[in-house]
């Protein structure tokens, strides 16, 4: 007999999913509109691609010439403990990475290869490299226009630099405000979806997978898992238990390390096949097979979409975390932020892709979809790896939910204020979406949240381009001082 609550949940979830379907339809019409008839590139992909390429050229390939300096800053060479802000450069980078490293790197790569073929990996890497300067621009701006409160806490992010910065560029107040408001609305939507429901859904699947061998799949298990995840997130965001967040922050780099190490070992064991895999990636990028999307543009679109979901460059979310870094040099934090897409996409995603291709599962019809494919690719070498991967998926999802609850709440506060009741209201809704995401695979809701995250790029990139001259002036000044060794070093 099916429990009543399961029936209720199913019908509630279906109703919600159906409502979202209508909205998704409208949003997809705009976002995936193809403005150039001869080339089927969706509008949003075009904006992300053009934006990233523009920033890279405009800032003189800073992603390459500033790479070494970015590493020096992240290592703490210039960390002045008396600078305003909450966290060090390194902590800002790991905070931002805890929101982006996760399912995008594990499942997203497999999806890109499944839908676009191995050639999609080239596009992922390219958008990762170009995305570095998009990230530089948005995180520098977040530092310039952040608000530092008397207690040392910081409010910052695209909603602030769009509203204040655009007015300084003589954009009328109402339009500047509209940019900030639209960004904040999309950010809240993204925080409930890609930063929450999608994560909860995948985390539930991972736990269910581990429990199946022990207790089977009793009715209502997803409700229970969803409830437990919501409770664990609630302990941090409502209960105020800081220790959990602190422990998670320490475990995430460890899980990343294990994942990358396992990937590298697999690649080392199969090193003879790597040139062949690399050749396959290049050839299938230049002459895509009909089985995978069919056309050059279709492969590119898949690669770019998955890369952006993974590293969020141009989306503006990480700028909220980077705004909190301790520095009085905004450009410096922008340079640190550049490393995010590099680590996330150029290193981790490429490694996953090579493992998937080298192991041969990419064209195995029985390999399953998304995370299943990656799991199988790793399990071919290490039979114990699925357990580690399940734990990683859960922890990545958990830290992503906490990070996104912060991004969403900052946007919520920007829209509606900081009152305690208002903040608690957001957090309760956030927890409710976790349970909802766990109990049902809501295709439309997840599509909606994907679209919301992509939509954040509209105001962010357009506003970012308008504000880029100010960043360029600051960068010129900073770079001159850097070349003259005018900076005080602390390590």
């Amino acid at each position, binding site marked *: 007999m099916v429990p009543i609550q399961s029936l209720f949940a199913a019908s509630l979830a279906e109703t919600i999913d159906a409502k979202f379907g209508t909205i998704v339809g409208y949003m997809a019409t705009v976002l995936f509109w193809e403005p150039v008839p001869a080339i089927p590139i969706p509008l949003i992909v075009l904006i992300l691609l053009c934006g990233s390429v523009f920033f890279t050229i405009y800032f003189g390939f800073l992603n390459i010439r500033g790479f070494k300096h970015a590493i020096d800053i992240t290592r703490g060479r210039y960390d002045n403990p008396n600078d305003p802000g*909450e*966290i*060090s450069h390194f*902590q*800002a980078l790991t*905070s931002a990475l805890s929101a982006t490293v996760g399912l995008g790197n594990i499942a997203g790569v497999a999806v890109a290869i499944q839908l676009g073929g191995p050639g999609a990996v080239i596009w992922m890497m390219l958008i990762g490299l170009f995305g570095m300067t998009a990230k530089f621009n948005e995180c520098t701006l977040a530092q310039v226009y952040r*608000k*530092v*409160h*008397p*207690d*040392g*806490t*910081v409010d910052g992010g695209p909603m602030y630099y769009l509203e204040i910065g655009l007015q300084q560029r003589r954009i009328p107040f109402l339009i500047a405000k509209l940019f900030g408001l639209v960004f904040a609305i999309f950010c809240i939507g993204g925080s409930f979806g890609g930063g929450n429901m999608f994560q909860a859904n995948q985390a539930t699947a991972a736990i269910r997978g581990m429990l199946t061998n022990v207790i089977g799949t009793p009715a209502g298990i997803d409700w229970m898992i969803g409830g437990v995840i919501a409770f664990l997130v609630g302990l*941090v*965001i409502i*209960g*105020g*238990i*800081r220790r959990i*967040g*602190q422990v*998670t*922050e320490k475990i995430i780099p460890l899980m990343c390390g294990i994942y990358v190490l396992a990937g590298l070992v697999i690649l080392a064991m199969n090193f003879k096949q790597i040139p062949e895999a690399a050749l396959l990636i290049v050839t299938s990028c230049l002459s895509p097979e009909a089985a995978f999307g069919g056309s050059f543009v279709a492969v590119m679109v898949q690669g770019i979409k998955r890369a952006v979901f993974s590293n969020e460059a141009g989306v503006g979310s990480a700028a909220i*975390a980077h705004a*909190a870094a301790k520095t009085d040099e905004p450009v410096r934090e922008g340079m640190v932020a550049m490393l995010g897409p590099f680590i996330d996409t150029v290193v981790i995603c490429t490694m996953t892709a090579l493992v998937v291709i080298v192991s041969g599962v990419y064209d195995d019809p029985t390999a399953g979809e998304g995370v299943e494919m990656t799991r199988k690719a790793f399990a071919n070498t290490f039979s114990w790896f699925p357990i580690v991967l399940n734990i990683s998926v859960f922890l990545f999802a958990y830290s992503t939910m*906490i*990070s996104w*609850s*912060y991004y969403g*709440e900052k946007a919520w506060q920007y829209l*509606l*204020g*900081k*009152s*305690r009741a*208002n*903040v608690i209201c957001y957090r309760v809704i956030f927890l409710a979406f976790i349970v909802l995401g766990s109990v049902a695979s809501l295709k439309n809701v997840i599509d909606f949240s994907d679209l919301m995250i992509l939509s954040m790029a509209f105001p962010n990139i357009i506003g970012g381009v308008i504000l880029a001259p100010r960043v360029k002036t600051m960068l010129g000044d900073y770079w001159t001082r850097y070349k003259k060794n005018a900076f005080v070093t602390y390590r």
Partner: protein
Amino acid sequence: MARPWCSAPTEVSNKEPPQKGLIQAALQLVDSPAQLHLLHVMEPLETMSPGVITGNVTDEVRTQRVTEALTRLATDHGAGGAQIAVAIGTPGLAIADYAAAHATELILIPSHGYHGVKRLFLGSVAERVLRHAPCNVFVLRRSDAE
């Protein structure tokens, strides 16, 4: 004898500090700045913020920073020697509680003057103080009020 007391707004702004007018008004009502209490109410910590997760931002650190900022503010505006206080909680209620605990005779408070949706969700600290205060309340409209 009047024992006025005022609350400092929470934002650092490039504009004319709104606290300046407030402190000047308060100083008119006391014999010495020592009778003045400067209170700042901080919102509870955001436990998922990077600063809190990394352990860099704690209530102790915030309290110390605000105390320093309020002391500087008092000194800069001729109110050196005023009593500095920091509380954590819902601003309107925390101010009223503080006033009750310290037998305050008058509360001076600025008002942001928000309207519309922002007002609906932000509410008004001044309004809440008016409802809960155990003494007279004087509301100063900020010069940069919306």
